[in-house]
């Protein structure tokens, strides 16, 4: 009777355990589907492992998990100074690195599409800053165990003030020569098409320069408002050019007039030198004026007009002074002197205007280029490559991926017994027990290599029968076989329990080892706490569905 009661208890316990475990599995699935913690392209469940990208070391904070999706996170861009508020979006392209070398190259646009389409094992993840996140998160798909991976990150971010200023400076060198090409009959004329062409050429040159440093800028598609801003910026800049051209043209005309005046002065001097009442100081003064006039015929241009302009203006004043010194009586000299003085004053006015326009052009360029960069280039891209592995280099830790322990009950039909046992399961590939296994997939063959394992264990109830068999080891028997995980922590197994068969002749001690076939159901030992709660806690504390 006791024997029957004991067996009944065992069967009841087994049934209850089985029922609870399945219920637990269902509950766990329900919970995980409810809690989504990120808004990336993949659904990431609560409790998912999070690995941090170490920006400074271009590495991950941990060995990457395999077989389960996980979260890759960080709080900065490619430098610690690039804080999350500056990051607009992150794209991550990753695939197995079969060469295991750090010589991977940044994928081009065509390859990026392949990553996005998941071609040839390539994978892709992205994150958009919604303004409220304190760190960025990428949902990484399941990785294979024992593999090296290459991760390519593209950080799209806002321009810092410093970068914007640098790009504006860069653009201010590129754009003016492009505008200068559009001088038409001494008039700077830019059509809408030409403005678009200048924008395009400028961005291309900026991109080309930045690409050398692995950086990229993203030119935005210009809205009609943006187009107006750019058109106005280009218009203001081209007008500043126009003003400079106007002053140069005026200087040029007045120099032509001055040359004519100078020729006239030479004639006056020639006649004066031939006259009886000539005075050497007047002749010298006119000679000096004529000599100095030659230096006025050529004026400093560009930045020299600003830097060396005073010297040029001083020469003009010296000419005027020499003309004053040459106080030759008579209308002839007086007319030439007046004409020369007028034209010299014109040149002084025009030259001052020219120098002012150059300064103005510089200011306008700075101001308009800042608008240009702010409008056309809104995004900056930084790219980094990071290599990572799913192989754990620690032997003990790595073995955990191959070996699990479970507790089970084996049915031995040939002797009509059930025996509990403690077993170890040896998988033929690393497995991650965090990856859920579902019964519905069992018959499709999916995840077979994650389910199948060899088994080795010990029964811990006696199989001894007087005069017939003894336990193989003290009170234990060896149990071997193979099993298949049918759900997360439930396995069905089959194999042989090894015992010592006693010789039928009691005087003969030559016993033999024999096997008894069994089938069993076992539970992963990691849920021992569930077992513990089940048998020790009050019924009301049993977890229920949320």
């Amino acid at each position, binding site marked *: 009777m006791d024997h029957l009661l004991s067996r009944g208890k065992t069967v009841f316990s087994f049934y209850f355990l089985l029922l609870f475990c399945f219920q637990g599995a269902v509950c766990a699935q329900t919970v995980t589907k409810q809690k989504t913690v990120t808004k990336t392209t993949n659904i990431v469940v609560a409790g998912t492992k999070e690995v941090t990208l170490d920006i400074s070391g271009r590495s991950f904070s941990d060995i990457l998990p395999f077989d389960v999706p996980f979260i890759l996170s960080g709080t900065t861009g490619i430098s610690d100074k690039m804080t999350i508020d500056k990051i607009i979006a992150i794209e991550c392209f990753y695939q197995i690195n079969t060469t295991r070398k750090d010589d991977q190259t940044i994928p081009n646009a065509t390859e990026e599409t392949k990553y996005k389409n998941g071609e040839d094992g390539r994978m892709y993840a992205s994150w958009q800053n919604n303004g409220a996140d304190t760190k960025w998160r990428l949902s990484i798909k399941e990785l294979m165990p024992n593999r090296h991976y290459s991760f390519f990150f593209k950080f799209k971010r806002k321009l810092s003030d410093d970068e914007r200023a640098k790009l504006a400076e860069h653009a201010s060198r590129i754009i003016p020569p492009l505008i200068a090409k559009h001088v038409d*009959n001494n*008039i700077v*004329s*830019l059509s809408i098409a030409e403005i678009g062409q200048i924008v395009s050429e400028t961005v291309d040159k900026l991109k080309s320069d930045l690409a050398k440093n692995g950086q990229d800028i993203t030119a935005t598609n210009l809205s009609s408002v943006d187009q107006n801003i750019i*058109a106005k910026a280009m218009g203001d800049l081209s007008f500043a050019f*126009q003003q400079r051209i*106007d002053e140069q043209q005026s200087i040029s005309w007045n120099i032509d007039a001055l040359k004519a005046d100078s020729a006239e002065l030479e004639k006056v001097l020639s006649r004066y030198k031939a006259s009886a009442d000539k005075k050497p100081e007047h002749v010298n003064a006119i000679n000096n004026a004529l000599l100095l006039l030659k230096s006025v015929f050529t004026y400093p241009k560009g930045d020299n007009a600003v830097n060396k302009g005073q010297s040029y203006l001083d020469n003009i004043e010296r000419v005027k002074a020499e003309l004053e010194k040459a106080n030759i009586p008579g209308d002839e000299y007086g007319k030439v002197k007046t004409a020369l003085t007028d034209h010299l004053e014109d040149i002084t006015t025009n030259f001052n205007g020219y120098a002012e326009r150059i300064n103005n052009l510089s200011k306008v360029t700075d101001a308009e280029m800042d608008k240009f960069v702010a409008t056309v280039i809104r995004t900056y891209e930084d790219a980094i490559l990071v290599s990572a592995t799913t192989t754990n280099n620690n032997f003990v830790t790595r073995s955990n991926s191959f070996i699990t322990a479970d507790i089970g009950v084996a049915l031995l039909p040939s002797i009509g017994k059930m025996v509990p046992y403690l077993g170890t399961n040896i998988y033929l590939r690393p497995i991650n027990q965090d990856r859920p296994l579902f019964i519905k997939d069992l018959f499709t063959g999916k995840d077979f290599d994650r389910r199948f394992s060899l088994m080795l264990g010990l029964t811990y109830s006696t199989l001894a029968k007087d005069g017939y068999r003894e336990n193989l080891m003290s009170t234990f028997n060896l149990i071997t076989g193979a099993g298949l995980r049918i759900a997360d922590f439930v396995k069905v197994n089959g194999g042989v329990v090894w015992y010592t068969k006693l010789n039928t002749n009691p005087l003969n001690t030559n016993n033999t080892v024999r096997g008894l076939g069994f089938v069993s159901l076992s539970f992963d030992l990691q849920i021992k706490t569930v077992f513990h709660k089940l048998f020790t806690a009050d019924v009301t504390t049993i977890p229920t569905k949320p």
Partner: protein
Amino acid sequence: MPLQLSTIQPSPDTISPPDDVSLNFTLTANVGADYIVSYNLALGNNLYFQQTDGTLVKQLVDPGTAGGTLTVFNKDVRIVSKGPKANTSFVLKVVVREGLNGDTKSCKIWIS
């Protein structure tokens, strides 16, 4: 007396061709000086001055003699375009010359 133009002030400074613009500026010159003022548009763009007889030209020329040292100009010009809108702004250039010397100033007019 140097021959000098003041800044050219267009009114209005934004037009929708065909439209009229008044160009306001002053000329400083010697009394009695003969001058030529010309109004110019870039040859390459699709904008033209429309004369009273309807002809389209790129340059208007007004000869004159300075009656005083300061002459005030309020020149009305009609700007028309050929074809669809091609420019967002354009430069209208005023040139004054007396013999070999002269002065030139430009103004910018926006197209809406």
